[in-house]
């Protein structure tokens, strides 16, 4: 009945799975692998749902190259994907330092393990920070757009390039609208921040500049680019505007369909949470290494197990990178 006894009280190695080693792997490592398998299925569920939604809106899905265009220090420069590529590289390098830590662990080199773990933690923090920066850019937006009564996003184009609201709306806001706050209105009511420009203001500025055109969410199947309307069609569409959208959140998204933003926040957020928890676990193991816990135990298998988790986070990012930014 040995199989039914959970805690082996006369041996120190509780939950060790007994002496039997199925597949020649230790209990902890095997369970880490099976956890990773289940987590991989969770992530594939999210990415498959993203795929379904993208296929559902295949004729109007946002183009990732036009959404993620920022690079730190290069303000206003169109730099598609360079920053995500850098983030991907940082995560791969952190995977390498992790694997070097595992390798040093096999050779019982405590100092080396500690240094490589430390490097892994630093790269992990850089990655999460970069992701936060991506979120910040996505939330605050880059151009601004309007939403129509048909719930579609209209963007503005001048000379073939998208143009920001701030670059052509110079007329005055006439509706005297300010954000409603508790201290300047009814004390029991407040609202979220309002857009910088009013719909009427944008419409008027658009009418004043005949070189401006409207770009819709729809994709031209031949060019695989967003369709730019003629001046007459643009004016007709803009007349249907109901709100000015700046940036993206779970309800509206200046880059197109709001569900694109929802998936972005959900999938990169879930991955970012994995990275964050990986960093926390790495820090705990790092201190154990420094304190000599594994030196006394005689092996560095804990480093190997946390390493598996860390590599898995990298593995998932490889797929998120492809399906969110490239495909």
């Amino acid at each position, binding site marked *: 009945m040995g199989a039914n006894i959970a805690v082996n009280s006369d041996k120190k190695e509780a939950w060790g799975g007994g002496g039997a*080693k*199925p*597949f*020649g*792997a*230790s209990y902890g*490592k095997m369970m880490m*692998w*099976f956890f*990773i*398998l289940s987590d*991989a*299925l969770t992530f*594939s*569920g999210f990415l*498959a*749902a993203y*795929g*379904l*939604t*993208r*296929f*559902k809106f*295949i*004729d109007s899905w946002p183009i990732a*190259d036009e959404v993620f265009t920022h690079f730190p220090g290069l303000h206003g420069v169109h730099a*598609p*994907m*360079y920053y995500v*590529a850098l983030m*991907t*590289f940082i995560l*791969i*390098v952190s*995977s*390498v330092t*992790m*694997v*070097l830590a*595992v*390798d040093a662990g*096999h050779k019982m080199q405590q100092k080396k393990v500690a240094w490589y773990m430390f490097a892994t933690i630093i790269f992990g923090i850089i990655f999460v920070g970069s992701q936060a920066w991506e979120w910040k850019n996505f939330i605050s937006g880059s151009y601004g757009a309007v939403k129509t009564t*048909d719930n*579609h996003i209209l963007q503005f184009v001048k000379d073939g390039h998208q143009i920001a609201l701030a670059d052509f709306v110079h007329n005055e806001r006439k509706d005297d609208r300010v954000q409603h706050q508790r201290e300047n209105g009814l004390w029991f009511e407040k609202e979220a921040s309002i857009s910088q420009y009013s719909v009427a203001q944008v419409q008027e500025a658009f009418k004043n500049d005949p070189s401006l055109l409207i770009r*819709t969410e*729809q994709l031209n199947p031949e060019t*695989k680019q967003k369709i730019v309307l003629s001046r007459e069609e643009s004016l007709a569409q803009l007349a249907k505007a109901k709100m000015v959208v700046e940036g993206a959140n779970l309800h509206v998204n200046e880059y197109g369909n709001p569900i694109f933003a929802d998936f972005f926040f959900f999938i990169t957020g879930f991955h970012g949470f994995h990275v964050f928890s990986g960093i926390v676990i790495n820090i705990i193991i790092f201190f154990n290494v420094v304190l000599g816990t594994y030196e006394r135990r005689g*092996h560095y*298998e804990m480093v190997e197990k946390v390493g598996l988790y860390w*590599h*898995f986070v*990298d*593995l998932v990012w*490889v*797929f998120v*990178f*492809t399906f969110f*930014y*490239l*495909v």
Partner: protein
Amino acid sequence: MGHAHESNTKRIWIVLAILTIVTAGEVALGIVRPGGLVFNNFLGTSLLNWIFIILTLVKAYYIAWSFMHLEGEKTWFRRSIVWTAVFLICYLVTLVLIEGGYLYDTLSPLVKW
């Protein structure tokens, strides 16, 4: 544990180089988007997208086999992980993407532009 762990620092750097080159290649293709690869349709998507997917699987292979040391595990342990994941993910993705195509066919005529 339970199997040989020879130090393979050199291989780690080689794998880093492979992953870096593949990623750089992906990014270059993603920025250039060569017309010959973009404007066609092979099994539901463009050739460029297939290249991205294949390169991603190449990267996943190197991460799992080398970094996660699957190549050193017992054959059936490796299969219990990889085959399960590959089968279930292919199954899910196939069904869900077919459903997505159906939703587009059914709902897009109702969208007012």
